[in-house]
């Protein structure tokens, strides 16, 4: 046998090549699981066995290239019902991490947060507040922030008092084939760039999919957000967000809401049963001191969407009066009209468009409602994110 073969065989057999540590359910789960996450070597897998893990504190991972893998989102349950400290259930602060096949339940703050964690994969994970929608539930279910290259695939989030799947201040994002229900916001992309939200089921939230750019944050949204091929259905859960949070202002029955973000495509989605509107395009209405901030949405394209029933229970201020004036319901597409032509709102959707022609920050009582159609325009070229192949492989 040639010498280099022997070496290769040795390397393949060495524990460092594919080290796996398994943590089973049972007493002292907190310290055993946390110890495994601290002692994990780069390149290794921490397997979490089936069963319920009753945890008293937030867990955290700060080692690069670690896979945390359970036995399935209904089999491996990390329960934070008895949590006494920390702001989230699981916190990841390292790069190239894969989280898959487990559930986080009833965390006191956010469910799973990853901060400054590049090339992270969330696959087949469930985050849920099991008592249903309540303002005392944690804010975000899945919460990557200040990161680049994020893949969220086949994830389920239920009951978040802010956003089920929230991606903030990040770039190159794919949220796909996931389910968000009974959250205030189903999926939210905030102050981020190059995000694809595709093939998701977003139902029974207050608002389905939110695309926001907000002032006074360290990172401004870079725009380029594509909301494609999603089913945004029956978002009818009354808003249960604690006041003070921006999502507390989202009207119940909102399908897709674009606020102040640039280069947004809302294309080929199925939208129905959204009592305020299937699609809303709005400026940021609150006062702000951030001089570099642009409160208008710009370059928004609404095309090839299938519209079902909408606008039958408008929940924004003045909505009921507006609906009455318009014959009982509001049109499926809503634009505050703020910013006028500079917004460049175009598309092929034939569904009626309600425009309020509001000046920036003006009250709804100053609205000059107008029902029409979207301006046909040259569609902007859509983009497709190409995430590193190792991320796609990890999500198989």
């Amino acid at each position, binding site marked *: 046998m040639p010498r280099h073969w022997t070496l290769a065989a040795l390397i393949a057999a060495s524990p460092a090549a594919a080290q796996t540590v398994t943590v089973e359910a049972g007493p002292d789960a*907190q*310290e*055993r699981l*946390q*110890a495994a*996450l*601290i*002692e994990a070597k780069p390149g290794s897998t921490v397997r979490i066995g089936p069963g319920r893990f009753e945890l*008293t*504190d*937030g867990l*955290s*991972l*700060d080692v690069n290239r670690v896979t945390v893998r359970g036995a399935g989102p209904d089999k491996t349950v990390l329960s934070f019902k008895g*949590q*006494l*400290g*920390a*702001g989230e259930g699981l*916190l990841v*602060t390292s790069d190239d991490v894969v989280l898959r096949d487990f559930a986080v339940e009833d*965390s*006191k*703050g*956010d469910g799973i947060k990853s*901060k*400054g964690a590049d090339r992270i994969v969330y696959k087949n994970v469930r985050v849920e507040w099991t008592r249903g929608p309540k*303002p*005392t*539930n*944690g*804010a*975000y279910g899945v*919460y990557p*922030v*200040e990161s680049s290259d994020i893949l969220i695939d086949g994830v389920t989030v239920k009951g978040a*008092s*802010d956003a089920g799947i*929230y991606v*903030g*201040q990040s770039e190159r994002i794919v949220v796909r084939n996931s389910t968000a229900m009974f959250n205030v916001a189903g999926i939210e992309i905030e102050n981020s760039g190059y995000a694809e939200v595709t093939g998701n089921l977003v139902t029974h939230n207050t608002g389905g999919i939110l695309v926001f750019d*907000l002032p*006074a*944050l*360290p*990172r401004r949204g870079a725009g380029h957000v594509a909301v494609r091929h999603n089913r945004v259905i029956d978002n009818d859960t009354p808003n249960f967000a*604690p*006041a*003070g*949070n*921006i999502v507390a202002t989202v009207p119940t029955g909102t399908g897709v809401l674009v606020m102040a973000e640039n280069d947004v495509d809302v294309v080929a989605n199925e939208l129905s049963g959204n009592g305020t509107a299937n699609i809303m395009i709005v400026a940021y209405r*609150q006062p702000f*001191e*951030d001089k570099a901030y642009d409160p208008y949405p710009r370059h928004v394209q609404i095309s090839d969407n299938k519209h079902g029933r909408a606008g039958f229970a408008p929940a924004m201020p003045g909505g009921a009066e507006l609906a009455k004036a318009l014959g009982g319901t509001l049109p499926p597409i809503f634009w505050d009209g703020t910013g006028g032509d500079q917004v460049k709102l175009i598309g092929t959707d034939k569904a009626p468009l309600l425009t309020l022609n509001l000046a920036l920050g003006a009250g709804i009582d100053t609205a000059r409602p107008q029902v029409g159609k979207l301006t046909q325009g040259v569609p902007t070229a859509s983009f497709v994110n190409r995430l590193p192949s190792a991320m796609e492989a990890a999500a198989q």
Partner: protein
Amino acid sequence: MKALLGAVALFVAALAGRPAEVNDAAITGDALPAKLSDYRFFADLAGETPAARVIPYDLETPLFSDYAGKHRFLYVPEGHEARYDAEAAFDLPPGSAIIKTFGYPQAGKFRPIETRLLLRRASGWVALPYVWNAEGNDALLRRAGTRIPVTFTDPSGVTRRISYAVPNQNQCKDCHALSGAIAPIGVKARYLNHGGQLEKLLAAGMLDRLPADAPRVARWDDARAPIEARARAYLEINCAHCHNPAGAASNSGLFLELGRTDPVALGVRKRPVAAGRGSGGRDFAIQPGEPDASILLYRMESTEPGVAMPELGRATVHKEGAALMRAWIESMPKTAQAR
């Protein structure tokens, strides 16, 4: 017999002459020593008799940690000095260590619970938590942290029973991180500049220089100091290790370092970003003149995980600290944009 006699002779010599010496290899090596005694920071660990070049210090305004007492020590190896900085934490040479023991008085005597170490290795800082044994004669490495039931009497005379959280190794870093690398927090000129502490470090050959104009923070509970200065010192030491642009709360946009001047970054009429139920139904971090409309107060006065700030190491409300922040916010003119 001869060997034993020799050992006794050495022991006697140590008692009589040179103070004990720190085990430098334990600080600089790659291993994670299992026992606090392995480092030999103290000639007598239980009695906290420091070894050579291990110097006790305290902070003019400290982080609140559930009313725990803290005994802090700094070690800089022989032949090396910390580099003075007027702003940032002192640059400590490899081989240095920061030792911080947390405990509560029991029957009139300080009973240690845990000792946190920051070790300056060649590759950077390493943070390790050690938990004291029942005998109180040594502490053992507990990388995954733990919880310990503690009963104590707070300064107002109230008996408190809490589940005291010893942080895990990652949680050490949650607070002690700047741009992802572990960094000391309190070892700054402005926090050490009182009671001759800096002079003592200089005299011991542990600090390279000491300018006459070294800055100094206000003491948070010094009733004679301006309330603004006290409040800002309190905010910095309790919050700014996360709430700065390179810290764990960088995405919040709420930045509370002492040098920060932009009112919105400091929270004045700043809306929350990811507060969730931590907002308490309030609109702004600080609503000038209205502490009860300020999220900052709501989160300081809560002990609920997910609401309470800081997120780690606080199971009790710091009544006196909250009262200070309340008075500060009350003192702000309701119409003011600045300060």
